[in-house]
């Protein structure tokens, strides 16, 4: 073989590059079904290229980071970018050295899914909810006096401060991931950790699904002066019945027919669209 198959080392510069690309892409490719996962792929692309010298492994890693992912940009995105970079590095080295691969595809994915919701909760409350308003409150009197500083100060200040501590989270996430990964390599604990993370990942996914998936009926019927509201009856049976049905229907579709995402999207769009047009949903 002429090509050197050894993964290259991830440098501080690579990490900053990943953080910058994540920060920049962030909400740009936001899509309904997979949210902002493409931004994380864009962030990690050059790192993955340095790590996986085999095209099949690289392709698998690219697809891995196009799966459903959503979090807050700074606390969630910074930390997870760092952790995932270190996990991918450990995995690439294990593959290259023909060691047992303990950092599996599932482990990386479950780590992302387990962390993203909780970190987003912290990040939203602190960044958009608090830090932003501290800057605005400081600058408001300048704006009231007619000075452009009233606008420029909170914009530059908030953007700069969040950028800096987001990068700090990326670096710490990377260190944390490395420390965790070296301990994980010991093997025996591995299955337990993967199982635990799967449970946590699915649990958080259930929590997220309850607020992300919005399907409700607007159907009402007037029978001799009596209002008949379908959604109220459904809520009386089981709250969340409609979104749950939609998720499970697609889940079973994937189980039966394989993962055909485009078909699922087009089919769901058609069904929901028709039901909405006739004011059932």
């Amino acid at each position, binding site marked *: 073989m002429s090509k050197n198959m050894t993964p290259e080392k991830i440098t501080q510069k690579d990490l900053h590059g990943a953080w910058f690309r994540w920060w*920049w*892409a*962030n*909400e*740009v*490719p*936001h*899509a*309904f079904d*997979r949210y902002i996962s493409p*931004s994380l792929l*864009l962030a990690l692309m050059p790192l993955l290229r340095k790590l996986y010298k085999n095209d099949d492994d690289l392709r698998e890693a*690219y*697809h891995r980071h*196009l799966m*459903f992912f959503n979090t807050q*940009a*700074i606390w969630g995105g910074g930390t997870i970018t760092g952790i995932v970079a270190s996990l991918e590095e450990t995995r690439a080295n294990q593959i290259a050295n023909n060691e047992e691969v303990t950092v599996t595809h599932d482990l990386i*994915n479950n780590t992302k*899914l387990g962390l993203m*919701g*909780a970190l*987003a909760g912290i990040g939203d409350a602190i960044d*958009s909810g608090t830090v*932003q308003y501290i800057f*605005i409150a400081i600058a*408001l009197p300048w*704006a*009231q006096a*007619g*000075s*452009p500083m*009233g*606008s420029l100060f909170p914009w530059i200040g908030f*953007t700069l401060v969040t950028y800096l501590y987001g990068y700090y989270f990326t670096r710490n996430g990377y260190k944390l991931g490395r420390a965790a990964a070296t301990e994980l390599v010991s093997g025996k604990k591995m299955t337990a950790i993967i*199982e635990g993370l*799967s449970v946590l*990942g*699915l*649990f*958080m*996914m*259930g*929590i997220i*699904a*309850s607020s992300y*998936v919005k*399907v409700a009926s607007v159907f009402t019927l007037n029978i001799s002066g009596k209002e008949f509201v379908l959604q109220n009856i459904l809520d009386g049976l089981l709250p*969340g019945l409609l*979104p749950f049905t939609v*998720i499970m229907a697609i*889940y079973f*579709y994937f189980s039966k027919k394989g*993962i055909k*995402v485009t078909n*699922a*999207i087009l089919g*769901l769009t058609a069904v929901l669209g028709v039901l909405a*047009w006739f004011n059932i*949903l």
Partner: protein
Amino acid sequence: MELTVVQALLIALFVAAVQSRGLGYATLTMRFSPMMTGLVVGLVMGRVPEAMVITAGIQLVYMGVIAPGGSMPSEPAVATAIAVPVALLAKMEPYEAIAIAIPVGLLGGYLYQFRFFLNTFIIRLSDKFAEELNDKGLWFSIMGLPIIVSFALYVPVMFLALYYGAPFIAEFTAANASSQLFHVLSVVGGGLAAVGIALSVHVIGKKEYIVFFILAFFLAYVLKPLGVTMITYAVLGSVLAFIYVLVTRLSKD
């Protein structure tokens, strides 16, 4: 309103840039606070000091310091781009001007949803480029195309609203056919997230683990009125995962 074509176009381009999120996280405070939009409108109209005073007033309305006496327009950047010229040209108070911007803010919110909808199809292109390991293609489908789409959505709407006036947009949003269209769009948008969720559930771990998903889903529905935070759920989920691992290990020994 009496803005020139160039003025209306410049403001429209700025709003499109913010709503496309093309400047990264720097657009967060640009989208959710009226401050930067107000400054840009002031610069374009050559009346910065007055625009700043009006914008500060709008910011106070958004922060709840001044009660607007009615609903608040969504999409502060979009609404401010309409409200500041209105206030400047018609000599209105900030809280009156922002009320006029409500229908345009509403439309801006729908366009933001529509952007997600179109991005959902652009992701198929990203899947294809990922399969080909085409980095240039991925840059185009992840950054380039979504930004172009946002400009195509926001520039015409903002331009028309600014040049012909906000009532023009209000009539459009109120028209029957378009409101039915918006209804369909928001229903489809609300439901499509199910695809991503189902996909993730499908790929995580063993099949039997789905019970944890179901448990969390209904737990979150039942506890919704309590306003339980994500962090609390993460703690509960971790405890649950820990118990699960303990029990399975005990039964193995």
